């Protein structure tokens, strides 16, 4: 009879063997040998950590209680593996292209690298993993107790043994899982050890099965008869549980952190899935092949009330086959240890990456940039988190009393971890899935799982029976196992149905209502269309001739002179003989700074990243590059706008200058004109007044004639001075308007008659009298003055043989428009802009005006609220007078 001491020795020896295998595998991988370490077979075997101690012992117990129901736990993963082509392949491809380290990393990466989400998934995974670890503790403890019963020394105590098993597994996991730090790299050693354990547990279970079928029952035929004759001899599986458990195990197979670790993170080649697609279901089939026979024989052979969970051990023991029992114990031990190692590895990676490191880095404030510091912190964080996770498992075991059936604890864990499924599947197949949706869905599912399954399962200490019976505060519709009053369901089915249904609904609704950030949308596209975005992921190539590439790039950006100088300087600083420096971190940093001066920090970082290769360009880098270019574009468009404004101002200045020059010339011309104008009458006045003074005997007739000339000239002078005075009064704004009402027709009548009166020049005036019946309320004399001026201008300057002046009036948009058009040759274009200036005169001084008439007209029209302008292209000189209508003006 094997004693406890022998058992412990065997366990320790087995652990040492595992260590040896792991160590050797790591050595081989490091040396580049051992391609078989990355073979599909090892990959498939490593997947079988799905079969834990729960599977090993609990499946038989489950079969003994409820027949074939246990098989659902294997059918789910089988279906998942069969759908590898459109499911797992995508997951693995995404995991490899995004270089994810855990399922929390994957979810966070998909939803815009949100650490909040990563923390949520981590907490969920830890809480879901806790019952599972409790399960392993329970199974090992129970198997110990079987051997202890047979041990005569009687030293065994269950309470302390659980503690020591937990502590031992923690140490084991710490030693195994945190030996090397790099979570991105594959753990060849661990994976190989797990593969070995898979073989051991399969072999152990098959050995027990073969022993039971051929050694106890006496062959397949008798075995089948015995099965039908047993108390579980009929198909007796609840349809709801059957469907739910198949679905649940399929979901958990994808979502369990340890499955994700071996399936995605440790995957060396996508092609391995092709083999695992049939080999892993085969493994599962073999694992479950002898479960029912063992259960049936156990029920037959073992005394009433013995624990069916341990038939795998107790049946060989009862038959006196100690060595088979020992083998089966090792198989169960293998199942437990491999599960705990990988779970602890996966969970501690998540905890340290998403919980501890962000907190530690924020408290350090960037002071701990020495790489050694971080390594130690990460290792420490992982070790501590493994210990904490194991402690949680131990605590859960104590709380749940350790008596519950193994299978139900495993299912609790499955239901918890399956809450990730909507966010995961949605993230892989639906681009519209958002971070908010994932967060809301996870939270809803998580809370419901805790409330409907985890807490009720932990016994009366946490959730009192009154709550279970009547709901919290007596609210019956919130009873944990009959939500919304739906009673009579299996608690498991009830919890899974509600939590996953509401989780999915919340996920979809919140995704539809929220709007993702740019990073999220980019990542979403990369995940959902991963096969369009990625070729088969290539490994990192060694950095060959990086310095040369860097040199070429730098020359392009900085110019060859400065670039060569910079590189030369760096090479000298490194003490190298060649002109190219080694691409050390310091050098790269300085180069990046140098380049960022030219192309912006993000661009420089991305360019160096491209060449040096080690770090690929992240989406943040690209976004920063886009921001920088957007800023540059903005800046340059601002410059463009400013330069356009400047050139516009310059043109205006040039125009103003030209005008000023013209005006100045006009003024000079006028001064000479005015002096001439003043001088001519003054000369004749002086001459005739001298004649009258000095000449005696002038006839009366002559005297009258000379006096008339003097009078005329004086009048002319007065008129000139009047005009000047009038203009200055108008310009200074001191004029007061004398408003009155009349129609346009009568104003024009008076103006035409006074303009044509007493003139020898003939001018035919053409008018359209019906259109002139427009009432005006304005200064009638001033307006008449404008009209007189325009008519007499036409009279004076129209050079046609039979001068005709057309006067037409329209009402245009609340304004009166009066056009004065003659049939002469008009005003030459170069003079058109000057006609309204003071002292402007067109075509010399043949009519003897002072050039003030139109200037006065313009001033008057401005005072009256209208305007006067020259209309080019009318065939002759054409002036347009605009004036507001009477009622408008009256209203003002």
């Amino acid at each position, binding site marked *: 009879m094997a004693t406890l001491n022998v058992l412990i020795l065997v366990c320790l020896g087995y652990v040492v063997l595992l260590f040896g295998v792991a160590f050797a595998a790591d050595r081989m991988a490091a040396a580049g040998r051992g391609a078989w370490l990355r073979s599909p077979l090892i990959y498939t075997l490593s997947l079988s950590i799905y079969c834990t101690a729960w599977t090993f012992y609990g499946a038989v117990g489950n079969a003994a209680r409820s027949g*074939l129901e246990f098989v659902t736990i294997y059918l789910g993963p089988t279906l998942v593996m069969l759908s590898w082509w459109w499911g797992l392949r995508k997951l693995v491809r995404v995991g490899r292209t995004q270089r994810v380290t855990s399922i929390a990393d994957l979810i966070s990466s998909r939803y815009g690298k949100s650490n909040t989400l990563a923390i949520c998934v981590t907490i969920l995974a830890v809480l879901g993993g806790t019952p599972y670890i409790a399960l392993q503790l329970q199974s090992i403890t129970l198997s110990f107790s079987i051997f202890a019963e047979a041990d005569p020394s009687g030293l065994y105590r269950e309470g302390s043994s659980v503690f020591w098993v937990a502590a031992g597994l923690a140490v084991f996991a710490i030693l195994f899982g945190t030996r090397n730090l790099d979570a991105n790299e594959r753990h060849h050693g661990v994976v190989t050890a797990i593969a070995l354990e898979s073989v051991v547990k399969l072999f152990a279970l098959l050995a027990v099965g073969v022993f039971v079928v051929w050694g106890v029952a006496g062959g397949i035929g008798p075995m089948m008869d015995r099965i039908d004759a047993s108390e579980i001899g009929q198909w007796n599986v*609840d349809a709801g549980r059957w469907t739910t458990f198949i679905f649940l195990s399929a979901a958990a197979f994808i979502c369990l952190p340890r499955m994700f670790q071996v399936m995605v993170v440790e995957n060396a080649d996508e092609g391995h899935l092709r*083999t695992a697609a049939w080999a892993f279901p085969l493994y599962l089939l073999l694992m479950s092949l002898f479960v029912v026979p063992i259960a049936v024989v156990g029920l037959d052979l073992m005394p009433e009330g013995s624990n069916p969970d341990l038939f795998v051990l107790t049946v060989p023991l009862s038959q006196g086959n100690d060595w088979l029992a020992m083998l089966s114990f090792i198989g169960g031990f293998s199942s437990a240890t491999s599960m705990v190692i990988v779970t602890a590895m996966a969970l501690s990676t998540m905890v340290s990456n998403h919980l501890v490191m962000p907190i530690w880095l924020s408290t350090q404030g960037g002071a701990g940039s020495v790489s050694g510091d971080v390594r130690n912190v990460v290792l420490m964080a992982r070790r501590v988190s493994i210990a904490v996770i194991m402690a949680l498992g131990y605590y859960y075991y104590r709380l749940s009393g350790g008596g519950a059936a193994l299978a139900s604890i495993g299912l609790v864990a499955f239901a918890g971890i399956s809450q990730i499924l909507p966010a995961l599947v949605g993230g892989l197949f639906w681009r519209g899935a958002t971070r908010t949706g994932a967060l809301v869905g996870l939270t809803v599912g998580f809370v419901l799982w805790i409330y409907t399954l985890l807490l009720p399962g932990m016994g009366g200490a946490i959730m009192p029976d009154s709550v279970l019976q009547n709901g919290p505060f007596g609210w019956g519709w919130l009873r944990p196992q009959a939500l919304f009053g739906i009673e009579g369901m299996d608690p498991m089915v009830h919890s899974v149905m509600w939590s996953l249904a509401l989780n999915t609904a919340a996920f979809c609704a919140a995704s539809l209502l929220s709007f993702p950030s740019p990073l999220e949308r980019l990542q979403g596209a990369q995940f959902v269309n991963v096969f369009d975005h990625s070729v088969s992921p290539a490994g990192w190539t060694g950095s060959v001739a990086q310095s040369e590439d860097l040199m070429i790039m730098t020359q392009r950006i900085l110019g060859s002179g400065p670039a060569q100088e910079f590189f030369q300087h760096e090479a000298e600083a490194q003490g190298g003989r060649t002109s190219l420096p080694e691409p050390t971190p310091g050098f790269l940093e300085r180069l990046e700074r140098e380049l960022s001066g030219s192309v912006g920090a993000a661009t420089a970082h991305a360019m160096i990243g491209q060449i040096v290769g080690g770090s690929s360009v992240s989406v943040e880098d690209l976004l920063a590059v886009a921001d920088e270019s957007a800023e540059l574009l903005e800046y340059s468009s601002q410059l463009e706008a400013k330069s356009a404004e400047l050139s516009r101002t310059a043109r205006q200045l040039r125009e103003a200058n030209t005008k000023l020059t013209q005006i100045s010339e006009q003024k000079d011309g006028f001064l000479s004109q005015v002096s001439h104008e003043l001088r001519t009458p003054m000369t004749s006045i002086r001459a005739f007044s001298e004649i009258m003074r000095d000449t005696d005997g002038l006839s009366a007739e002559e005297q009258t004639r000379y006096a008339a000339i003097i009078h005329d000239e004086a009048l002319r002078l007065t008129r000139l001075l009047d005009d000047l005075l009038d203009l200055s009064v108008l310009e200074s704004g001191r004029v007061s308007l004398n408003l009155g009402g009349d129609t346009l027709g009568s104003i024009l009548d008076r103006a035409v008659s006074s303009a044509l009166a007493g003139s020898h020049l003939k001018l035919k005036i053409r008018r359209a009298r019906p259109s002139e019946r427009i009432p005006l309320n304005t200064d009638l004399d001033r307006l008449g003055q404008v009209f007189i001026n325009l008519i007499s201008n036409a009279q004076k300057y129209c050079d046609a043989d039979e001068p005709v002046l057309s006067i037409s009036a329209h009402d245009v948009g609340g304004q009166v428009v009066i056009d004065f058009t003659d049939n002469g040759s008009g005003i030459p274009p170069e003079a058109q802009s000057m006609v309204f200036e003071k002292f402007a005169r067109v075509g010399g001084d043949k009519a003897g005006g002072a050039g003030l008439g139109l200037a006065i007209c313009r001033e008057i029209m401005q005072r009256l609220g209208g305007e006067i302008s020259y209309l080019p292209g009318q065939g002759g000189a054409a002036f347009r007078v605009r004036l507001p209508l009477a009622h408008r003006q009256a209203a003002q």
Partner: protein
Amino acid sequence: MNSGEDRKPLGVRPSPFLERQSYRRRRLMDAARLLPILGAALVAIPLLWPSQGSSEDGVPLSSAILYIFTCWALLIVISLIFGFAARRMVVSDDAEAESD
């Protein structure tokens, strides 16, 4: 799967042999996609069996075991065949098959 559809691509492209091969590959992918549905259907059949009723007309557990494990083995064999076929065929151009 469906031999009637084979004729369609023959007239369109100049190289019938290659086209036929890639056509076969597409149908192989279809088979791979359909396999889990077949599996789910087979696994769902026990839902139709009478259970928990009278002990006389129930399905004996040995028959249930035979049925489930036979289906299981069948699925594994199909998956195995597909795995080998895919390995032979997909080696050449992975990208084309993926874009389908």
